[in-house]
């Protein structure tokens, strides 16, 4: 076997990021302490941004399967890889100060983040069950370590432990499902599997069992009900910078994985997995939104909000049409942008010794920092899906696709819970604007100018991008056209 340039081109982003991660790891050992924090950070940023440029410049409409069908490069992988790199770069910008103050901004943290990015990129272009699994594991291993990085914090260690045990269980379940699929179809390549499954006709129980196991593993990874138990504890316990990292980009990778496995590989079992996803999605939307109301901790609240958003994302997938997949892809991208912004604000309010993770901490934010409060207002409206934010458009397109799939009752339940959910987002707005701060508390901002600028841009995008939302939808629908 020999490699051709096309093969290399498919995995070029992965190669670049891994090389740079290795370089940063070694440089970090040899440079003097004063340079270290800067070099690892700036090198990581440059790497991610260059990778985005490379991905975009190599992007075309062909879908190329290479390296013995292990990987594919198509519009979905290009779009999501670029998104993953960009999101992770923003994550690094937001989390640097937080992590520096808590003493875990070491070269390792950046390196683990970069390897996590590699894992996510492998997941997005995986076209073979082995590659899917290996990407999932690479990402998961980095996440476990990043959650536990703050070693003296008991909640962080607990969160790392929970994520590790449940994540390992989910990987095992996913792997078991994959091995059954291999046994039943005789192939690991997704397109061949699709053909094999298509020929089977009515699926027997073993195939359904395999499907159940695969779906369980996938739902575990995105944290949808009933496999959501780890989400609140991990979001709350992990250092906020890590929460941000695992809340945004990995969802994009999981989206690619779900599209490839369910929409492409197991398309023949659509009827069966649609039923499972309807249940998972409705439970997520309802439980996420209802339980979030009772939360006092903003990270925990955002965790339940994430569960409900994953429910909405699944609505797009389960409609089973090209339009639905495109809506789901749009949804996950938009959700990623908003999440980055929200956690960016949370990180800005943290200081050494204060986590600012209680909702009470936001009391009267408007009096002291009107601009930040305004940004948070935009983000909250966007999460709630209030027009004219992009969050509204995301929900709308997903619901539209569900209704087109003749599942109006599902859409109705989702809308009702979204309205319930609007309550807790708007409560934050109320607390910021209409409650006066506790006397004597002085909310200090903790961010540099660059961070502030990016945060402002990030938050403003949720409104400012509205005129171009059609373009995004167009890109997404072109991307999903490469499925099948």
């Amino acid at each position, binding site marked *: 076997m*020999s490699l051709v340039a096309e093969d290399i081109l498919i995995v070029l982003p992965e190669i670049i990021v*891994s090389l740079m991660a*290795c370089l940063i*790891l*070694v440089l970090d*050992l040899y440079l003097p302490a004063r340079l270290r924090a800067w070099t690892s950070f700036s090198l990581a940023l440059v790497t991610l941004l260059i990778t985005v440029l490379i991905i975009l410049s190599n992007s075309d409409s062909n879908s190329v399967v290479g390296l013995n069908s292990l990987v594919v490069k198509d519009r979905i992988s290009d779009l999501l890889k670029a998104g993953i790199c960009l999101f992770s770069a923003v994550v690094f910008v937001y989390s640097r100060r937080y992590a520096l103050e808590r003493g875990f901004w070491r070269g390792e943290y950046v390196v683990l983040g970069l390897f996590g990015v590699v894992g996510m990129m492998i997941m997005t272009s995986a076209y073979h069950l082995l590659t899917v699994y290996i990407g999932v594991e690479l990402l998961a291993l980095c996440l476990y370590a990043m959650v536990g990085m703050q070693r003296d914090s008991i909640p962080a260690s607990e969160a790392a432990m929970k994520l590790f045990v449940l994540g390992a269980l989910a990987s095992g379940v996913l792997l078991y499902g994959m091995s059954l699929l291999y046994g039943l179809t005789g192939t690991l390549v997704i397109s061949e599997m699709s053909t094999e499954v298509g020929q089977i006709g009515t699926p027997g129980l073993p195939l359904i069992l395999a499907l159940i196991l695969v779906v369980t593993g996938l739902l575990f990874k995105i944290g949808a009900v009933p496999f959501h138990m780890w989400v609140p504890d991990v979001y709350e316990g992990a250092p906020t910078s890590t929460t941000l990292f695992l809340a945004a980009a990995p969802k994009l990778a999981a989206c690619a994985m779900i599209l490839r496995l369910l929409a492409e590989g197991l398309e023949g079992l659509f009827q069966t997995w649609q039923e499972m996803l309807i249940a998972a999605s409705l439970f997520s939307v309802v439980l996420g939104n209802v339980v979030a109301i009772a939360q006092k901790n903003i990270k925990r609240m955002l965790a339940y909000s994430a569960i409900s958003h994953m429910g909405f994302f699944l609505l797009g997938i389960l409609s089973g049409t090209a339009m639905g997949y495109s809506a789901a892809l749009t949804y996950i991208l938009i959700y990623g942008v908003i999440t980055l912004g929200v956690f960016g604000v949370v990180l800005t309010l943290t200081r050494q010794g204060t986590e600012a993770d209680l909702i009470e901490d936001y009391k009267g934010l408007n009096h002291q920092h009107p601009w930040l409060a305004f940004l948070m207002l935009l983000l909250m409206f966007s999460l709630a899906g209030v027009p004219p934010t992009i969050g509204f458009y995301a929900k709308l397109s997903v619901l539209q696709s569900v209704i087109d799939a003749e599942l109006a009752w599902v859409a109705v339940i989702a809308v009702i819970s979204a309205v319930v959910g609007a309550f807790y987002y708007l409560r934050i707005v109320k607390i910021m604007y209409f409650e006066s701060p506790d006397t004597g508390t002085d909310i200090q901002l903790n961010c540099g100018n660059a961070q502030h600028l990016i945060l402002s841009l990030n938050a403003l995008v949720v409104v400012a991008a509205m005129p171009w939302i059609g373009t995004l939808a167009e890109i997404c629908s072109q991307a999903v056209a490469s499925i099948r």
Partner: protein
Amino acid sequence: MLANYLPILLFLIVSIGLGFTLLVAGKLLSPSKPSAQKNSPYECGFEAFEDARMKFDVRYYLVAILFILFDLEIAFLFPWAIVLDDIGVFGFLAMVVFLLVLVVGFIYEWMRGALEWE
């Protein structure tokens, strides 16, 4: 091919049977009069001072984990060594890249002092 494993199977059966027989024979034939004194742990004639379980330095685990990782690396080398003639330069380079990645890990490990016992 499995027929070639028959001697090993027989060997296993005989050794398990023999071990079992000896244990049972020892249990049945030997005199056994346990008492609380006999069963208590012997610590230089004193009463046991404390529980034998104690917290150990995490370093022991670190060394063990690093050992496992490099053990796995070795496991990848065996098939490679066998087929080196057939897979050619490509396979050789594949292993070189793999080893380079782990050398980076080794450099990191060494420089961070994970191999030193303070």
